[in-house]
């Protein structure tokens, strides 16, 4: 089967081989080794299962159940036979009744964007052609064109409703750690005291309807004993919620853990993880997200909401043939769903669209932009009509202030940017190191205990400090808030000027000296900052749904608020200094600590995720003030520069790399002078490329070749001698077709010829009928010549979304480059272990 042609053709390219590289395997199309056994079983099982309506995992493999429901298994044999007899023009058309399973992908494989897109174009062309013939077909074509928007509407409605439910439930469960409402257990603390007139100016959330656990158990809310009871109950609930979350994830949907954004990024770039966006993942992620957030762990719900929205989109895709059957089209919908996720998480529809464009999407045409926009709008509207917080806002930490800022203040804003960048780089390094430890050492074997220990640690340390005891979103909301006369919180504990009642009518206040309360708040905040910074590193990546936005924003907001108060006091005591002169006269309200908190939050989030444009837009949608764009821009840009100096990848890319997903980063540039021939397989010392010939091979020979190798696809050549390229066949398609033909087609035995040509060759009358497989062959595989520079090849892979590309020399087939080869090559250049790229 193998022909050793390599030494001959390589003679022209000698010296191009990278000398330092020595890889033990030549698995250009290799599967992860421990999946090899399952693979055959999987395919055999799939072919056997065609006739039963089964629970096909979402994402990919849509072909199976559709076939069984629409046509039934009885007609498939006639169909296969018909395929053999029809003319060559029909065989070329991929739409002409393909076999079930052909054109689908295996788990942990990469899709071929080019093939999927051309499939969709063909389908679309056929519908347009048919629509001229009858009214029914015309209606069908209209409904087909309309279905994309309808799907967006449904995704927006569903994701918005789910987000509203999550908000309400998380808020309630979070308050449950403190006490319970007597007039209806379903009310959270604020809604419990909704109409109560017993609330006072100093203790705004105190009312007799809401009973803390100490009041219920001991009958008193004062004293050390009550404090201890409350403390213990807090720890108990935190542990219970964390335990429930991790066991549910473990028992029903292991894919529901983590933030989900790295995986969604990879899926959007063409990877397939079956079941990752399925209904069980959706249910479990929604339920456990609430538990995880309310357990007091240092995590947020914003990232997982993106995953939830993508699950909704993927499930709803099953209602529409157009999206069910085409992986590329489905990814367009998922891109829009990512926008919906951020839109409901921050109440920022435009920020969501930009987030999808900047951060997660791989292929983002204008059509998707408009659809994302529409879906984000619908979702935000749905969430608004649910009104989860009872304040007509979409997020808890919505702020509204319009205090002006002065140009001099750009300096502290940039300082905050530097802090955000340093924290981002440090966090990524520490978190990745910790996750690597979890992946490789014994720590990873005890996920439940790990979550419990971290939850207990968080609860024990967090309770005594009121700023860590409250949830992340509440903390941010408090820090963003600007102090006015209306506030009685500790953070606004300024010394009251004696003649306050006479000055002005508004509630805004001039700069004041810090009082006792504020100093207490400041050191509590400083402790909270240290605690949050440390605990977030070990929390992110645990086996519960965990987002990163809220914790990193909280860190930034604390730092910003501290700096803001510092600046304010500096200006108050030294308003005659040169820098404050002229704009910060005594009695003027010149520095807003809340704004500093906001800028700090943006800077830290930017440092961790390396978002810029979308982050600024999200922040200004949160604040509703356009005048803060420049401070936010300055801070995020500085933060990105500083963080990029320490390492160019954001937290999501770092996690993608840690897991070895096949993700070709579009932001990185390939700047090395290697050629296609250096990267392609087979290498010089390796056995020759396994190829099929367009005629002359028997079914038995093909099966032996397929089974003796692990490649996902095989080039088809004219003959072993000439090695002229005809096309490319995928392993899965080949196996399914042969298996199907053996079962359902008369006279196909091991000795039958496999023919890829248009016309069957003449053969003796007594020979078994040939098996014609031109229909499954890709007649237009991408080829480059062996001297194509790699930067161009990488560009082709990125822009077209190729899965593999064939390399020719003087028109003869020389080798193959896959996405994995490129990733390995890049890893090797960057001095990383090329074997860390795990999947195809």
């Amino acid at each position: 089967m193998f022909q050793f042609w390599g030494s001959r053709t390589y003679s022209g390219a000698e010296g191009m081989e990278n000398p330092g590289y020595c890889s033990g395997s030549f698995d250009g199309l290799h599967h992860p080794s421990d999946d090899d056994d399952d693979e055959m079983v999987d395919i055999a099982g799939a072919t056997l299962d065609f006739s039963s309506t089964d629970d096909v995992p979402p994402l990919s493999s849509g072909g199976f159940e559709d076939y069984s429901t629409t046509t039934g298994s009885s007609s498939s044999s006639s169909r296969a036979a018909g395929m053999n007899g029809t003319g060559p023009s029909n065989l070329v058309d991929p739409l002409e009744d393909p076999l079930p399973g052909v054109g689908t992908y295996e788990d942990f494989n990469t899709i071929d964007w080019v093939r999927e897109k051309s499939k969709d174009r063909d389908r679309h062309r056929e519908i347009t052609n048919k629509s001229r013939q009858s009214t029914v077909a015309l209606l069908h074509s209209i409904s087909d064109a309309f279905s994309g928007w309808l799907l967006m509407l449904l995704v927006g409605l569903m994701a918005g409703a789910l987000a509203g439910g999550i908000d309400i439930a998380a808020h309630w469960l979070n308050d449950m750690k403190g006490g319970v409402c007597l007039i209806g257990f379903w009310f959270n603390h604020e809604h419990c005291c909704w109409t109560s007139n017993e609330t006072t100016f100093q203790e705004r959330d105190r009312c007799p309807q809401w009973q803390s656990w100490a009041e219920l158990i001991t009958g008193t809310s004062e004293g050390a004993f009550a404090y201890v009871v409350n403390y213990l109950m807090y720890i108990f609930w935190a542990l219970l919620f964390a335990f429930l979350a991790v066991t549910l994830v473990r028992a029903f949907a292991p894919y529901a853990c983590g933030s989900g954004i790295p995986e969604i990024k990879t899926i959007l770039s063409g990877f397939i993880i079956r079941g990752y966006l399925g209904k069980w993942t959706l249910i479990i992620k929604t339920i456990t997200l609430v538990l995880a957030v309310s357990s007091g762990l240092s995590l947020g719900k914003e990232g997982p909401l993106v995953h939830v929205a993508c699950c909704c989109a993927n499930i709803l895709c099953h209602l529409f043939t157009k999206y069910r059957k085409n992986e590329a089209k489905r990814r367009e919908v998922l891109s829009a769903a990512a926008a919906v996720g951020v839109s409901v998480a921050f109440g920022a529809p435009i920020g969501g669209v930009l987030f999808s464009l900047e951060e997660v999407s791989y292929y983002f045409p204008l059509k998707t932009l408009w659809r994302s926009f529409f879906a984000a709008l619908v979702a935000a509207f749905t969430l608004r009509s649910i009104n989860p917080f009872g304040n007509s806002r979409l997020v808890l930490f919505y702020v509204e202030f319009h205090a002006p800022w002065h140009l001099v203040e750009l300096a502290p804003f940039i300082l905050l940017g530097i802090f955000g960048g340093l924290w981002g780089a440090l966090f990524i390094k520490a978190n990745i190191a910790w996750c690597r430890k979890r992946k490789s050492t014994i720590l990873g074997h005890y996920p439940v205990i790990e979550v419990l220990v971290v939850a207990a640690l968080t609860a024990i340390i967090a309770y005594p400090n009121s700023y860590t005891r409250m949830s992340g979103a509440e903390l941010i909301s408090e820090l963003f808030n600007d102090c006015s006369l209306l506030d009685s919180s500790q953070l606004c504990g300024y010394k009251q000027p004696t003649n306050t009642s006479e000055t002005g009518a508004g509630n805004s206040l001039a700069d004041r000296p810090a009082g006792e309360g504020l100093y207490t708040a400041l050191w509590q905040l400083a402790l909270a900052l240290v605690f949050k910074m440390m605990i977030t590193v070990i929390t992110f990546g645990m086996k519960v749904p965990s987002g990163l936005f809220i914790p990193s924003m909280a860190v930034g907001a604390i730092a910003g608020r501290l700096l803001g108060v510092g600046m304010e006091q500096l200006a108050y005591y030294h308003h005659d200094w040169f820098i404050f002169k002229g704009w910060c006269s005594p009695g003027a309200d010149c520095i807003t600590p809340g704004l500093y908190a906001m800028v700090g939050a943006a800077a830290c989030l930017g440092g961790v995720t390396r978002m810029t444009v979308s982050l600024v837009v999200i922040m200004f949608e949160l604040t509703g003030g356009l005048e803060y764009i420049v401070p936010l821009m300055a801070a995020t840009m500085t933060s990105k520069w500083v963080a990029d100096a320490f390492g160019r990848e954001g937290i999501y890319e770092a996690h993608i790399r840690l897991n070895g997903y096949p993700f070709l980063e579009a932001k990185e540039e390939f700047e090395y002078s290697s050629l296609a021939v250096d990267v392609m397989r087979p290498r010089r010392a390796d056995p020759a490329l396994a190829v099929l010939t367009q005629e002359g091979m028997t079914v038995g020979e093909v099966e032996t070749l397929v089974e003796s190798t692990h490649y996902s696809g095989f080039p088809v050549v004219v003959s072993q001698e000439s090695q002229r390229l005809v096309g490319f066949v995928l392993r899965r398609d080949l196996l399914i077709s042969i298996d199907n033909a053996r079962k359902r087609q008369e006279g196909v035995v091991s000795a039958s010829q496999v023919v890829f040509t248009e016309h069957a060759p003449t053969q003796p009358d007594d020979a078994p009928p040939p098996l014609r497989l031109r229909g499954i062959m890709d007649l237009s595989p991408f080829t480059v010549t062996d001297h194509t520079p790699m930067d161009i090849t990488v560009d082709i892979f990125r822009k077209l979304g190729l899965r593999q590309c064939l390399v020719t020399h003087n028109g003869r087939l020389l080798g193959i480059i896959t996405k994995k080869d490129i990733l390995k090559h890049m890893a090797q250049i960057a001095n990383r272990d090329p074997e860390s790229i795990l999947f195809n």
Partner: protein
Amino acid sequence: WDPGQTVHLLFMYVCVMLHRTHNQMKTYLLQNSEDIRCKCICPPYRDIEGQIYKQNVSLKDCNCLHVVEPMPVDGKDVEAYCLRCECKYEERSSGTIKVTIIMYLSILGLLLLYMVYLTLLEPMLKRRLFGHSQLIQSDDDVGDQQPFANAHNVLSRSHSRPNMLNKVEHAQQRWRRQVQEQRKSVFDRHVVLS
């Protein structure tokens, strides 16, 4: 037969139904007068402490003059006092909150029950049904999925259960195999999501 068109029809139907229920909900929710409030926060003024006032008034009456009762200051100071107060009209839907929380708790409860059933009760039932010896034997087999599948076959044959149940059972087995596979790759081998 085209699933797309059916979906469209279904969607229209659902829209109509939703509209109807929405109207019913609206009338139901509006009866609940506790769901609106006007909350006024008045900061300290001279020697008067800061106060919070809440009243059940409509949006147009939501101002200091209507809500702050009793007025702590005399007639000439009312204006100065009220200028400092901030009044906010807020709406909520206690029905939605109640439904959401109860729905959340019931789903959580169902999931927990199912989890307990799968991990504790089912193995126990199996043990009781098929005796001790067979269980030991099956434990030595490849995994515990295959023997369970056999056990289900035996069960279904002996009681000649309807076909539907078999299908459900088959789907359940398939799902459990998938979850097990996912668990292996996430928790044991740490290939994805680590």
